[in-house]
């Protein structure tokens, strides 16, 4: 009787354990994560962005390998983001080609910059200036300044920062765009990610020009993001997985953050950690993928690496975040390994109709988009910092300005 009862019990728990394994904890896999593999992947991604720049300074936006099409769609926010990544590549990889390509892209943005009331904003078409595109253009310029120490665009940087500051609402959030046809901001629309982009841009501008007073709007923006943004944007699973906010926090950590802001950074790390764990379960087994759904695209996975590397940097500078460091390192190494494994190699690219559009790229849902390479590149680049125990994001040596 006792034996039968024990057998039934063991069978129940055995089946339960198998069910749990299949449904709750499928195996996690993180791919190859040697420094060399991650470094090679970052370089290949930068090369993709350089190689696939168009004559007018823009980039190939989308590529569908099945039909071998590159649609004419474009997005200036992503243009500014890719340019920012190229300046990062220029400074951190000492790549002249990256700086030259980014300067061509910057020229396109300058041609599409509108000025009014002491500020400047990126506004292709001249009717509407999105906050995000000007914010990322400013971040790109800040990266260029860090990489080259060239002050020629300082005036433009300040004017862009003035635009961001002028768009700030009393609650620390931002209007999402300036409408040139009405000569006033769009007060209706909101954006979940633009505040983070503006935060980081303002923080970098304050670092570049400490006497201009851009720390005040940056602090207000951080307060909005950490205290109100998730409610305003009705985020279903707060905090919003916003890598821009993480960049901003890492930049501002030395300014001194409140306990509440540190707590937000802690929760943000957990949010990204969960995303990485879930993705590694998709990577680990067929049933993990079936359970967790299709793999995230590189523009998403890359942002997780960007965020975690920023929060790692913050954790090295503020004792209150030191406890997240080991887990953040583990997740960061994992997500970089996943990216390195999923990237199209030179050998694999040969099977594509246009190998130059495939090599160094990440494909998902039958396409690659330029920001797949942008976010993956930045994420991989800063993961290398963690692996090299380098808490400084800026390039250590200025790179000569290409003539």
């Amino acid at each position, binding site marked *: 009787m006792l034996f039968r009862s024990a057998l039934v019990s063991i069978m129940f*728990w055995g089946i339960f*354990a198998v069910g*749990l394994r299949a449904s709750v*904890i499928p195996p996690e896999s993180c791919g190859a994560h040697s420094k060399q593999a991650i470094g090679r992947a970052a370089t290949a991604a930068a090369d993709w962005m350089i190689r696939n720049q168009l004559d007018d300074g823009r980039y190939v936006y989308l590529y569908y390998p099945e039909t071998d099409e590159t649609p004419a769609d474009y997005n200036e926010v992503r243009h500014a983001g890719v340019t920012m990544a190229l300046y990062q590549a220029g400074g951190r990889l000492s790549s002249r080609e990256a700086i030259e390509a980014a300067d061509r892209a910057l020229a396109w943005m300058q041609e599409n910059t509108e000025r009014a009331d002491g500020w400047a904003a990126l506004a292709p078409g001249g009717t509407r200036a999105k906050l995000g595109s000007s914010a990322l253009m400013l971040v790109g310029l800040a990266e260029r300044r860090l990489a080259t120490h060239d002050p020629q665009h300082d005036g433009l940087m300040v004017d862009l920062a003035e635009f961001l500051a002028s768009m700030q609402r009393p609650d620390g959030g931002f209007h999402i765009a300036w409408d040139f046809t009405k000569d006033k901001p769009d007060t209706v629309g909101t954006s979940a990610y633009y505040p983070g982009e503006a935060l980081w841009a303002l923080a970098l501008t304050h670092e570049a020009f400490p006497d201009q007073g851009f720390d005040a709007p940056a602090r207000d923006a951080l307060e909005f993001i950490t205290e109100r943004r998730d409610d305003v944007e009705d985020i279903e699973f707060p905090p919003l997985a916003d890598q821009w906010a993480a960049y901003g926090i890492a930049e501002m950590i030395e300014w001194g953050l409140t306990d509440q802001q540190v707590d937000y950074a802690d929760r943000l790390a957990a949010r990204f950690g*969960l995303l990485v*764990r879930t993705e590694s379960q998709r990577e680990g087994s067929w049933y993990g993928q079936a359970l967790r759904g299709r793999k995230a695209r590189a523009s998403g996975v890359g942002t997780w690496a960007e965020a975690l590397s920023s929060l790692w940097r913050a954790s090295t500078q503020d004792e209150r975040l030191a406890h997240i460091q080991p887990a*953040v390192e583990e997740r960061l190494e994992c997500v970089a390994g996943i990216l390195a494994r999923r990237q199209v190699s030179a050998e694999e690219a040969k099977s594509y109709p246009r190998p130059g559009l495939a090599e160094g790229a990440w494909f998902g849902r039958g396409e690659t988009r330029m920001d797949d390479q942008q976010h993956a590149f930045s994420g991989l680049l800063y993961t290398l910092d963690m692996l090299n125990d380098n808490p400084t994001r800026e390039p250590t040596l200025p790179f000569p300005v290409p003539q």
Partner: protein
Amino acid sequence: MSDTLSVALGFFAALAPFGGVRVFLASMSTPATTAPGPAESAKTALFGGCTAFALLAAAALAADSFLDTIDVSGGAFLFAAGAAMAPVAARLILTGESMATPAAAGKQRVQPWLAPVGAPLLAGPAPMVAAVAYAAHYGEVEAIAGAGIALTVTALILAVSPWVTRWLGGLGLGVLGRLSGGLLIAVAVSLAIRGVHNV
């Protein structure tokens, strides 16, 4: 609350001593003896507690290797541990007991402190997954210390269980067993949430 106390509370919920009192007493009974004496209860509770402590400590010490072997991160396992506690919690809430009470043996059981008391009554599925989860999340020392505290309290309750049973009666014991299930549900949910909020 310190990490160790928090872990101890989690273990206490998983051990659910009031839900195990009937099994504990039945393990020492024969048709000829209705209830064990105080000395036998104390001895069985002490040895059973030590056996369970050894098993839980071993699980805590092996946690990292175990998780590496099955390719699962500590955060993900926390969530799974919460899920693994659900059947035991459900049983406690429904019946007031953590496992089925074995029928009285025809003769005195040999070493009841080992089985069923040491395992699976004390070192059952819920405490074992808790040991792995807590060791991965808080560290081996906290997990082992927490298990030690919870098992000490549990062993004391089991040691005085003949007196507790007389004092509370079947109804009181059933209510406390069901409340243990509620506590275990709370611990399971907290573990699952901790798993989601873990880096």
